[in-house]
């Protein structure tokens, strides 16, 4: 059997705070050695050895993307293939797709269907309520036994306070988080669905006034978070807020965490990289939910990332067909692709000296696993060889025509960082030609 040796790679393991240049040897599906000096003894017999010269490259645990929306148009396997090329070794999909993930058998089915030792592992959130009305709780226990890692209504908020209370109580019994898309949808005009002309379309403020689009006030987010925090306090549940986008949201979460409540949250790259001024040309690739906010909000998200109020960064991937986006803004679909840009936009926080490399890696690897209480291979000797290798400083420009998923709100952005390889269970699931050239012959 083959041995693979990664010479002089900077091993970044945020769990053990290990961050040193090492030689890493893998054999079969295991990491057998991580050492400063090449551990010759680890290689037994006359087996073939592949050496990669990884000078200047970084090895880190595989990315865990805790929020991927497949919708109905996307093919699960295709998404896995794209994810693997972008360093994502594990992803969690939202239940509001077609068919809806609201019962144990469909959850089992999705996991079996996606099982492939070469591809990104797929986990699922179960639908918190049985149907869109959001009035009856789903079979949380049975779905949890089948592997559902948490419960949410995806891109719709769990609106009814009694239902939320019961969900939290019940979920705490089975030790699973309730994940909320925090938005008071009455306030954002989304419940007035009978006519599109009064639905919230973007952040409320000067820009929405100039563009003549319906505003969603930023308090629509914090109102829901505040209510839910009260209920989390009442029930003792683990409450997780997805894609936090406002200053007030971050402030309230910070206070609740200080109080010692079991509350976690994530955000997504658009909310720390962009603001509402991007919408000035009615470009529908910026039509997101929650909407892009003011720059003040964006800076508050960055503060939240810096001080640890925000635990994780997820792609919030919601790919949309071009047809649904080449529309007047009001008629266009909501959401943008994210799995192909998650890595280097997170790394941008490191290049801008907002957080250090280890913190950035944590936010897309170990922190999501802690929140969801799932086990992923650690970057340690005798652990399964699932990891990524990347060049932190590789400069490139995001080009929407080169991406496999659309749309992107980051077209034309200059970024640094490139995934050069993704190993899953010892398999080189993705090896970029740049790394192939680094094989020592």
């Amino acid at each position: 059997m083959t041995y693979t040796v990664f010479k002089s790679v900077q091993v970044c393991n945020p769990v053990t705070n290990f961050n040193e240049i090492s030689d890493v040897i893998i054999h079969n599906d295991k990491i057998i050695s991580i050492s400063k000096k090449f551990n010759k003894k680890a290689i037994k017999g006359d087996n073939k050895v592949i050496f990669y010269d990884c000078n200047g490259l970084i090895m880190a645990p595989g990315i865990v993307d805790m929020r991927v929306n497949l919708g109905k148009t996307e093919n699960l396997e295709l998404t896995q293939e794209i994810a693997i090329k972008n360093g994502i070794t594990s992803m969690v999909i939202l239940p509001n797709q077609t068919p809806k993930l609201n019962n144990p058998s469909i959850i089992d089915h999705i996991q079996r269907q996606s099982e492939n030792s070469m591809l990104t592992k797929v986990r699922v959130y179960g639908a918190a309520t049985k149907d869109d009305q959001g009035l009856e709780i789903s079979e949380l226990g049975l779905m949890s036994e089948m592997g559902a890692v948490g419960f949410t209504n995806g891109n719709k908020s769990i609106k009814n306070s009694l239902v939320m209370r019961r969900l939290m109580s019940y979920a705490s019994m089975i030790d699973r988080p309730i994940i909320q898309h925090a938005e008071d949808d009455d306030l954002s005009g989304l419940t007035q669905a009978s006519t599109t002309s009064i639905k919230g379309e973007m952040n409320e403020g000067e820009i929405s006034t100039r563009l003549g689009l319906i505003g969603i006030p930023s308090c629509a987010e914090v109102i829901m978070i505040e209510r839910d925090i009260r209920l989390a306090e009442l029930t003792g549940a683990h409450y997780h807020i997805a894609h936090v986008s406002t200053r007030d949201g971050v402030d309230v979460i910070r206070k609740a965490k200080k109080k010692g409540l079991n509350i976690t949250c994530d955000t997504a790259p658009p909310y720390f990289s962009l603001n509402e001024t991007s919408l000035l040309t009615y470009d529908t690739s910026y039509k997101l939910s929650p909407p892009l906010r003011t720059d003040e909000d964006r800076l508050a998200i960055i503060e939240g990332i810096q001080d640890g109020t925000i635990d994780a960064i997820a792609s919030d991937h919601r790919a949309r067909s071009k047809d649904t986006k080449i529309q007047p803004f009001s008629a266009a679909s909501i959401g943008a692709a994210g799995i192909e840009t998650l890595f280097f936009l997170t790394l941008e926080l490191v290049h801008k000296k907002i957080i250090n490399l280890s913190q950035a890696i944590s936010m897309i690897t170990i922190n999501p696993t802690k929140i969801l209480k799932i086990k992923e291979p650690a970057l340690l000797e005798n652990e399964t060889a699932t990891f990524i290798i990347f060049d932190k400083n590789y400069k490139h420009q995001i080009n929407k025509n080169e991406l496999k998923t659309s749309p992107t709100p980051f077209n034309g952005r200059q970024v640094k960082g490139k995934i050069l390889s993704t190993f899953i269970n010892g398999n080189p699931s993705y090896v970029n030609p740049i790394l192939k050239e680094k094989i020592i012959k």
Partner: protein
Amino acid sequence: MVNVLKNKSKNSPSPVKLSSPHLLAIEGMQKSEIEELLDRADYFANLDKHSNTKILSGYVILNVFFENSTRTRVSFELAARRLGAEVINISLINSSIKKGESLLDTASTLNAMRPDLLIVRHPHSGAPLLFADYLNCSIINAGDGRHEHPTQALLDALTIRRRVGFLEGLKISICGDIANSRVARSNIHLLTTMGAEVRCVAPPTLMPSSLENLGVKCFYKMKEGIKDADVVMLLRLQNERMSGTENPSEREYFKFFGLDENKLSFANSNAVIMHPGPMNRGVEIASVLADDTNRSLIKTQVEMGVAVRMSIIEALNHTKYKFLKK
């Protein structure tokens, strides 16, 4: 019939060239461009309606309306015909949209007919911008959602200018459903660009967020908002764009925001009244004021619409050629 356009006198301004091949919004337009368009429109307005202004023969205009309209559509049609252009009216209210055709498919179908100019009205803000991106002809925004209605603002400006003589320094109060009004937005941009003092008066539920940042003063009381105003511009309550939470009732609205003699007495004694129409008598304005020919310019507004649209269609014809020749 005399072909007056060929006999240019010193007082007849020449056709305008714009910096864009489209008229999508007032926001971003230069003061000088607006002035030139108004000068040219003023000239058209002074012409005898039987004068030969047919300078655009062979020019094909599609009047594409995705939303109901009578006055704007007819006004554009008349302007086009007076310039000698071919104009075809296409009403797409619910038709292609209901059949499932995307706006872009509709646009490319229309584009294949090779028009020179497309006049678009659409219920969604920004839709004309999408047409401008994907079609290769000039586009005039004839009203898009709550965004802009640039020709209305130009005709309002012409109406005021012809009555008062100038725009700079005038106190102009725009009153009513500002939140849902594209007319208000275009007027705010135009009048502030021209140096007028613009005030907006509306109940807070119909006042859009951060409106002050557009360079206007906001008032929630009519008497304060129209105090010493030279022009009182009223807007229609757009009930079709409301959810029932903006305004308690028409009679309450009239009581607080409808223009009547008493409220008007706070304005400048020469103040004129305007309304883009269609107006709801007894809701936005007392009937007696609407019909007061000394103070109400509502009918002049309609009349000026044709002149202004002639000036714009002509300008886009010139501008387009300038662009293509590049």
